């Protein structure tokens, strides 16, 4: 059974913006799928539709074999936003425990899981710190721990490392892959960065704007486990070039003659 099954999904916002048009996408268990595309291509919208945070105008979304709404109510997915969205008044432990409290876990079970999660994201010494005492990268790790704390089958990530510097981002990319391998969950990952998408994913979904649609789906055949050395392999660069070409194909009409885009600058 697929983890996510999207068929014929379109979204038109009340202002008349056609954010998504006839999206079909199936995601299998254990996959790491990145959605990449320029601003306005609807990738974050698509992610939110998977999480039933917004409703599609047309089409159906099935998560874990049930309608997206049911899946949300059953807490089948964890979500990580671009900002960590931690609660200032809660310590790191208490932030991680939030979904567990809401799910009615007892204190003892919560404490055990918090320890596991702190270990997973390597924040053991920070259990009693408050969010504002942590760096941006650490805060985002807390947010990941919170999303994974209740063992969701699906992890939705909306540009989780977009606000971080390049070095922190690469380190967190490596950590995320380790976490993904260990937890065995399925990940849907929205990003602006070609290198990040290629490095992390088993599949990259390239989207184009106006209206948002899928222009291509590229399987990433880089061997697992991926390490810092993966970023230097010729195959990595080939795939990066391929994703970039597909991106420009989709956005051809507004391309500048000098071919400078943020994605290229980042590499």
């Amino acid at each position, binding site marked *: 059974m697929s983890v996510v099954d999207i068929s014929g999904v379109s979204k038109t916002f009340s202002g008349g913006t056609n954010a998504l048009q006839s999206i079909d996408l199936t995601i299998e268990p254990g996959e790491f799928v990145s959605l990449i595309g320029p601003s306005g291509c609807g990738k974050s919208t698509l992610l939110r539709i998977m*999480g039933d945070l917004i409703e599609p105008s047309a089409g159906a979304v099935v998560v874990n074999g049930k309608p997206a709404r049911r899946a949300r109510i059953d807490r089948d*997915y964890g979500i990580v*936003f671009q*900002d960590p969205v931690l609660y*200032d008044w809660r310590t790191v432990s208490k932030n991680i425990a939030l979904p567990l409290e809401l*799910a009615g876990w007892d204190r003892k079970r919560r404490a055990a899981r918090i320890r596991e999660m702190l270990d997973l994201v390597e924040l053991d010494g920070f259990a009693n710190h408050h969010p504002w005492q942590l760096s941006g990268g650490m805060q985002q790790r807390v947010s990941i721990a919170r999303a994974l704390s209740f063992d969701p089958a699906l992890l939705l990530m909306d540009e989780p490392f977009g606000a971080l510097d390049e070095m922190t981002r690469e380190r967190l990319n490596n950590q995320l892959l380790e976490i993904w391998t260990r937890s065995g969950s399925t990940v849907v990952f929205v990003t602006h960065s070609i290198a990040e998408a290629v490095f992390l994913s088993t599949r990259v979904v390239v989207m184009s704007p106006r209206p948002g649609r899928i222009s291509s789906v590229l399987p990433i055949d880089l061997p697992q486990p991926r390490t810092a050395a993966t970023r230097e392999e010729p195959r990595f660069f080939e795939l990066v070039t391929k994703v970039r070409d597909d991106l420009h194909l989709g956005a051809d009409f507004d391309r500048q003659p000098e071919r400078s885009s943020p994605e290229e600058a980042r590499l």
Partner: protein
Amino acid sequence: MKRGTGRVAVFIVVLGSLWGLWEGYRSLWSHQGWTWPFVVDNTTMPHIYDIFAALGRPSQTGGPLLGSLLWHSALFTAKEAAVGFALGAVVGFALGVLLAHSKLAQRGLLPYVVASQTVPILAIAPIVVIYLGSLQVTAWVSVAVIAAYLTFFPVTISTLRGLTSADRRALELMRSYATGPWQILWKLRVPSALPYIFTALKVSATASVVGAIIGEAPSSIQNGLGGEIVVFNQYYTLDPTKLWATNIVAAVLGITFFLVVVVAEKLVVRRAPEHVA
């Protein structure tokens, strides 16, 4: 420790300066014979040491010391104000929650909540006293209700504002956990609202003391600070220091209420330093 010493030093310096200003103004005006904006003498501006000395003299011939009398009056007024403050805070908070959760209630009730504060407390107080008195309620409880009347309004407005201040993405996160409105209220909205609510409680804390003092007059309560103020007002030209001393005691009571709220805020609100109001 060092910071504590610094604070005490600032407090003493400011207090000393105020004392100096008062006495300096007094001596300058009386030596020069200036009469603008008012004549300065022992009636209009008694010496500060006279005011404090009054606390150590009998309040009337054969009576208790003024200090001891005011101490007991202050305790009595504090009881009224504290009960009123608690009542007003609870009602104000509950009303804020109601208004935050229903646009209909907000549209229907908010104008009257605002209107309630435009009516002078002096006009409301006798009505409260007469009404509650007819229900055989003890007089001081009426005064507490009057204090609550002044307390609830800032709390309602700030609770409403605070509850709706919760971060949009934090709400989205709660939605992703399929959280019900009740849990969203207690786990997200109320904690987000606490800094706003405490700001309101600081305003309300002093307002409740004022409310209690004002409420004592129409309730004919003699044993609170309000009662003393009425009496000493009548004898002002005879001995102004008694009224001044009472005012100082009332101010100290208000400041005490304020400080209690400040301490409670420090204990309750855990927030990034830049967010603390």
